[in-house]
């Protein structure tokens, strides 16, 4: 079995599962946000008039997309979530001032752990595979069912293996790695499948790099991304106080317990040292090319943040470029830390000062501009370099706007230059 299959077999109470099999699994965590929870509550209340949440799994609501609330409708939606959580004591409710972007906040709060089975009514729930969890996005109906039953059905995925060797060169990050992979296999290259990463190169990737890689597994169509549980993951979890089944993890999820090659439908070898900074041109994450090969493209805005790249090492990388420099004339640069904790850390490390002195906005945590919600919506025909995850038509504003996806370092360089591609900084 693949790593993912071992976790799902445990959740289904079976010794073994195979790709294609349908299983009902016990959940460890089910989560939603201010966009996906209101429909889940409406469905829950309609179908379960007694209003009882009988799930044994953790239920988490994070208010992060249209918050701090951008308009009256959003405020009423958040109020609905808040009131529902207030009247159901087994919901962990995280509001403005405590949370941040769900996929940055949940790992740092110790709510995601190796061997766990996690579903979230948000497609980027696949992020927690970096910690050795099985973690995947679902819809509001699945969340409503999970709140009642604590269970979810899954089609057991087959897996593509990514055997990493070497280490990333200076200036490259997990974002460049995942953009490279998506450009290679396409937006449906891992459809219905797991993307499992292993090999000697994994040790050279920071936890933040791994979160970024797993976060964008969905952009290749994958069900989940997964990294084996190693010393770096263990050190990260120790800080968060997450609880997990040590015996299961030791027996199944360590690097030395790697599945045989034959368990994978395909194995792709990647030498991390061969990577270069990448940029995904409009309008698909798979349109990625080396930044150096892109023709000089003038830009209007830069966004640095999101569940993909709003972590402290992302902000450090951006600050290292912006320190002592200034954002180019007629360009806006918006920096958004992924959580309250990351925001505080950025302030304490002096990163916030660097951003503000460079002429950038330093915002409170929110998903805001990534989905064209608020705090950085584009105007007609504008171009934006963004560290977010999707450059679809109309994603950050009007259908005529264009998004270039890149790493925090590349985005910060674009903010200073006023363009991306062509001559480098």
């Amino acid at each position: 079995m693949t790593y993912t299959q071992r976790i799902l077999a445990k959740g289904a109470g079976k010794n073994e599962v195979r790709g294609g099999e349908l299983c009902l699994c016990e959940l460890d965590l089910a989560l939603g946000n201010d966009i996906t929870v209101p429909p889940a509550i409406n469905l829950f209340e309609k179908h379960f008039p007694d209003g009882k949440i009988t799930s044994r799994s953790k239920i988490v609501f994070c208010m992060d997309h249209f918050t701090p609330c951008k308009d009256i409708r959003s405020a009423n939606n958040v109020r609905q979530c808040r009131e529902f959580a207030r009247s159901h004591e087994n919901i962990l409710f995280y509001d403005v001032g405590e949370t941040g972007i769900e996929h940055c906040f949940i790992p740092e709060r110790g709510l995601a752990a190796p061997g766990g089975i996690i579903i979230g009514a948000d497609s980027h729930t696949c992020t927690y595979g970096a910690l050795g969890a099985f973690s995947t996005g679902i819809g509001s109906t699945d969340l409503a069912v999970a709140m009642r039953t604590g269970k979810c059905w899954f089609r057991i995925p087959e897996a593509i293996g990514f055997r990493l060797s070497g280490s990333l060169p200076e200036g490259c990050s997990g974002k460049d790695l995942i953009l490279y992979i998506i450009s290679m296999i396409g937006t449906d290259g891992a459809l219905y499948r797991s993307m499992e990463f292993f090999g000697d190169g994994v040790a050279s990737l920071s936890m933040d790099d791994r979160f970024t890689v797993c976060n964008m597994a969905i952009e290749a169509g994958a069900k989940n991304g997964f990294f084996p549980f190693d010393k770096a993951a263990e050190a990260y979890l120790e800080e968060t106080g997450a609880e997990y089944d040590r015996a299961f993890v030791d027996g199944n999820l360590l690097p030395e317990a790697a599945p045989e090659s034959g368990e994978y439908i395909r194995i792709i070898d990647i030498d991390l040292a061969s990577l270069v900074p990448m940029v995904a041109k409009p309008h698909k994450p798979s349109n990625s090319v080396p930044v150096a090969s892109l023709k000089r493209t003038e830009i209007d805005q830069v966004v640095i943040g999101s569940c993909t790249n709003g972590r402290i090492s992302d902000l450090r990388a951006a600050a290292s470029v912006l320190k002592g420099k200034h954002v180019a004339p007629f360009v806006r640069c918006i920096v958004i830390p992924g959580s309250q904790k990351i925001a505080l850390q950025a302030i304490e490390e002096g990163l916030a000062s660097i951003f503000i002195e460079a002429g950038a906005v330093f915002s409170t945590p929110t998903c805001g501009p990534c989905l064209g919600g608020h705090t950085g919506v584009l105007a007609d025909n504008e171009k934006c370099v963004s560290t977010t995850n999707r450059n679809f038509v109309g994603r950050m504003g009007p259908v005529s706007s264009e998004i270039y996806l890149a790493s925090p370092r590349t985005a910060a360089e674009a903010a200073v230059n006023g363009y991306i591609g062509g001559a480098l900084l």
Partner: protein
Amino acid sequence: MIRGKVFKYGSDVDTDVIIPARYLNITDMKQLSAHCMEDIDAGFVNRVQPGDVIVAGDNFGCGSSREHAPAVIKECGVSLIVARSFARIFYRNAINIGLPILECPEAADRFSAGDVIEADLENGTVTDVKTGKVFKAAAFPEFIMNIISKGGVLNCLD
């Protein structure tokens, strides 16, 4: 039996163009459905008739997990989506809310906008009414048919 006129789209139709996030503060599906397909086909809501069918290429419904996407398509009266393939969260959400979908690459390639489709979900067949040509998709297992016929998974748990 499903029967309707075809609306044809390409590959990688994402949930942001099916229902743009700028409208996701609207929770009433009827109100929200006025914006269905707005960023890929602005006239869709004015032309679609109850029973019509969406036919598309690979990876239909990719991107965000928003269940609002299949929900507004269903609300507009679309009776079926036929695609070369579906993004997995969309596939799951469509079944969970009782919106019929079929993966059938051959049919997805052959149909054009305005053609009339007939489909039989139990047998997994898609028919081009004009030519009489029948395409075979994988039929749903019984438990999925049960979810669709009851209008969604929550109706099976009541």
